């Protein structure tokens, strides 16, 4: 199964997570993170969002992050699905789902994957508000979240 999917179509995170489980009886834990589009950001209501990406590099960057997670932890599967194009509030933007035998590995790998995705994968959000369109600014806190993993050795 393809581990990384970049799609302009809406997706159902629960269906995607079930695909990850398949019927693998070795899986004892699945942790998933779903990022949803909010209707509010930085003090303004947001009616629509457009996600731009760098076709080709996006998939490579995501696969590299997934490979690093598989290297660090004993996992039984990973699935990353990310929307691009136009989104409406309450639609899922991203799913990171991780399967392992026990919860510890899956929890850590899932957080690692979303922290890296937020700072290393070439996606850019543009929001539509009453005042017009604006590009979302990168957050320092996301950089700091990724930094925590840089020297972290494998832990379980």
């Amino acid at each position, binding site marked *: 199964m393809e581990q990384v999917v970049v799609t302009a179509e809406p997706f159902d995170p629960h269906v995607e997570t079930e695909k990850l489980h398949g019927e693998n009886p070795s899986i004892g834990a699945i942790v998933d993170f779903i990022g949803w589009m909010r209707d509010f950001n930085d003090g303004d209501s947001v009616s629509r969002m457009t996600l731009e990406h760098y076709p080709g*590099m996006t998939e490579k960057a995501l696969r590299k992050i997934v490979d690093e997670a598989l290297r660090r932890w004993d996992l039984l599967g990973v699935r990353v699905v990310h929307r691009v194009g136009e989104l409406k509030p309450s639609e899922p933007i991203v799913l990171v789902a991780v399967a392992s035998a026990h919860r510890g590995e899956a929890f850590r790998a899932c957080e690692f994957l979303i922290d890296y995705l*937020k700072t*290393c994968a070439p996606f*850019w959000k543009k929001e539509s508000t009453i005042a017009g369109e604006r590009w979302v600014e990168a957050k320092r806190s996301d950089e700091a979240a990724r930094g925590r993993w840089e020297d972290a050795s494998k832990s379980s």
Partner: protein
Amino acid sequence: MTIQLHFFASLREALGSDGETLELERDGLRVADVLDLLRARGGCWQDALGEDKTVMAAVNQEMCGHETCLADGDELAFFPPVTGG
């Protein structure tokens, strides 16, 4: 040497271009040298790629620092910090 340039997101809009093919007179240039060449065009190039801006770079679809050396045929992209997820 020839390189293929790509611009994304707010940078693409500020420059009014999503990319171009750039012919360089000499070999062995770094990402930073190409940035200097583009800034020297003045106007929106100087503003959008200014030293005060955080401009990220990728060579052949891998993020890299501005000291990275370029080779003939490379794909070089410039973009603002990423905001996915």
